[in-house]
């Protein structure tokens, strides 16, 4: 039973994607399939989380080859939480894209690509093999490349070239790091790596490999200094695609960092995690300063992704139980909020025909509900109580104070304030000020209204729920953090099933 649960999050998108390909000519079937696939994925992810929460980490040896020789799929709390979040974002974007993606992109194969992307993301969260992680990254990247370039507008192509180049560079570094690691200990299974690397006497080479992994995943997570591809590329594709990317893709990089730097590279905490902490501070500052210079909604939001990645890395860098729980809490909060903000930016674009702040305005007068809907995730992103972002920041700052890292705490607080300013800038320009003279006014009508507003409202509701009952999310995060610090259960789940 538990084996099926582990395979389902990969299998469901695969089957859905195949179904969409079979029904290539029938758009309405593809639309229905995509919705059903996303719903089943979310349900399967929920069951996986329930199972892991109740019974501890579970693993399955694919093809019956015992670890460490075969490929293992494994889910601890962190993996399960990430799969559930992927399911939620997948569901929200699947509904939104029905009302927004448009006939042309639908017939170019938007739905199968969307499902392949979900498969890659879930696979990356669930695999217990470092080379298999590389393969899932590539599956995910290939789908994302195509989604990003699909439609081939000038801006999209420019963004796609930067995105493709940087991600391929990161993949090459990742592959090289895997090669050196294999040469060092002769295994690829992550649990086995964790055990065997403890016996390698030379810290120098381990630090070098750790640095390679840090660079490779750092590029994918858009951490300082290699983050510039993200604001260049994320604002260019259709809103549904950028919402999906903004919510999920960089977080796969963060997940990989969390996994590798809690399971495998924990020999020289002062070197590796000290470095991560420094990177975290720079990422926070540069992201938020970059956002300040922008005046297009999606570019502002993209720079904020970068700055928020810094908070998550701060949790990893501090490496205490509370800090890791904070990082996981922050990832969950961020995925919900950031996806929602991109969806709402799409609604604004639908209503006024522009993302540029100067051409917007007066939305509060005409659409007060949309204004409120924007305020929930925006204020949550900035960390105002009683929304989810407040608790995310509170936990991290408390963890930072306990660890005595006052510099990074100060940085986190100041960046939070600057985030608020930047969100208020969008609020003032898009909603509060007088409508720009030459602005277009459109309405979203009929069924589309429900399709684009529904996901945004549900996601905002989740943000408020987490704010009102933070223990809903904090308890699983704490449990996940414990499993990250004490990896024995994870290693036992992977290696112990040998028959």
């Amino acid at each position, binding site marked *: 039973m538990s084996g099926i649960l582990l395979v389902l999050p990969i299998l469901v998108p695969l089957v859905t994607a195949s179904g969409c390909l079979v029904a290539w000519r029938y758009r309405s079937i593809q639309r229905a399939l995509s919705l059903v696939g996303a719903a089943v994925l979310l349900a399967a992810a929920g069951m996986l989380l329930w199972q892991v929460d109740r019974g501890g980490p579970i693993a399955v040896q694919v093809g019956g080859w015992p670890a460490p020789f075969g490929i293992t799929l494994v889910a601890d709390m962190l993996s399960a939480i990430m799969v559930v979040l992927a399911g939620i974002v997948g569901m929200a974007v699947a509904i939104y894209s029905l009302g927004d993606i448009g006939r042309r992109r639908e017939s170019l194969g938007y739905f199968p690509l969307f499902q392949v992307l979900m498969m890659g993301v879930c696979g990356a969260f669930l695999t217990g093999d470092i080379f298999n992680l590389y393969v899932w990254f590539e599956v995910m990247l290939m789908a994302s490349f195509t989604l990003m370039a699909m439609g081939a507008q000038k801006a999209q192509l420019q963004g796609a070239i930067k995105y493709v180049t940087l991600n391929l560079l990161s993949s*090459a570094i990742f592959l090289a790091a895997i090669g050196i690691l294999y040469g060092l200990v002769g295994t690829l299974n992550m649990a086995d790596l964790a055990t065997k690397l403890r016996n390698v006497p030379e810290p120098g080479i381990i630090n070098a490999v750790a640095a390679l992994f840090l660079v490779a995943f750092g590029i994918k997570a858009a951490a300082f200094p290699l983050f510039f591809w993200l604001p260049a590329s994320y604002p260019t594709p259709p809103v549904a695609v950028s919402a999906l990317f903004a919510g999920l893709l960089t977080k796969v990089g963060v997940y990989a960092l969390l996994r590798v730097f809690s399971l495998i590279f924990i020999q020289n905490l002062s070197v590796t995690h000290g470095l991560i902490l420094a990177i975290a501070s720079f990422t926070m500052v540069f992201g938020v300063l970059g956002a300040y210079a922008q005046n297009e909604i999606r570019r502002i939001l993209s720079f904020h992704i970068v700055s928020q990645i810094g908070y998550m890395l701060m949790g990893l860098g501090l490496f205490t139980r509370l800090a890791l729980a904070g990082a996981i809490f922050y990832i969950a909060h961020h995925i919900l909020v950031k996806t929602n903000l991109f969806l709402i930016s799409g609604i604004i674009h639908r209503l006024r025909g522009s993302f540029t702040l100067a051409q917007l305005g007066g939305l509060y007068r005409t659409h007060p509900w949309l204004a409120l809907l924007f305020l929930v995730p925006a204020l949550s992103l900035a960390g105002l109580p009683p929304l989810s972002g407040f608790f995310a920041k509170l936990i991290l700052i408390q963890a930072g104070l306990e660890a005595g890292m006052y510099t990074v705490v100060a940085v986190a607080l100041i960046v939070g304030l600057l985030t608020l300013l930047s969100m208020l800038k969008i609020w003032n320009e898009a909603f509060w000020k007088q409508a720009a003279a030459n602005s277009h006014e459109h309405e979203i009508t009929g069924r589309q209204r429900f399709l684009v507003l529904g996901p945004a409202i549900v996601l905002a509701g989740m943000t408020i729920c987490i704010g009102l009952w933070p223990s809903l999310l904090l308890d699983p995060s704490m449990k996940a953090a414990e499993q990250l610090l004490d990896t024995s259960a994870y290693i036992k789940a992977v290696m112990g099933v040998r028959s």
Partner: protein
Amino acid sequence: MTLLLAIVVGVLYSVGIYLMMDRNMIRLILGLALLSHAANLLIFTSAGIARGSPPIISTEGNVAPPDAADPVPQALILTAIVISFGVLAFAMALVYRSYETIGSEDLDEMRNVE
């Protein structure tokens, strides 16, 4: 032999990164291709080069021959080659498409279009 391969890997990396810094998009793609070759060769080298016998377990005995070569690095490289082939094919198509749209293969021209 290891030293020679190490030098080759180093040369491939430096040439690849040099090409990636060029403004010409074709050179960018070539640079990426060289980087993935370098990574493949690095896996091959760092896993240890030995002249072993084929790692095939005979029906009697049920153990691999003692001097068997390690098949895993080759499996990794094969997978990586297939992946990089697909990805590079996409990158070529992307570059060609943007050449058509923008009318130049210079990355700096691209910035001016915005």
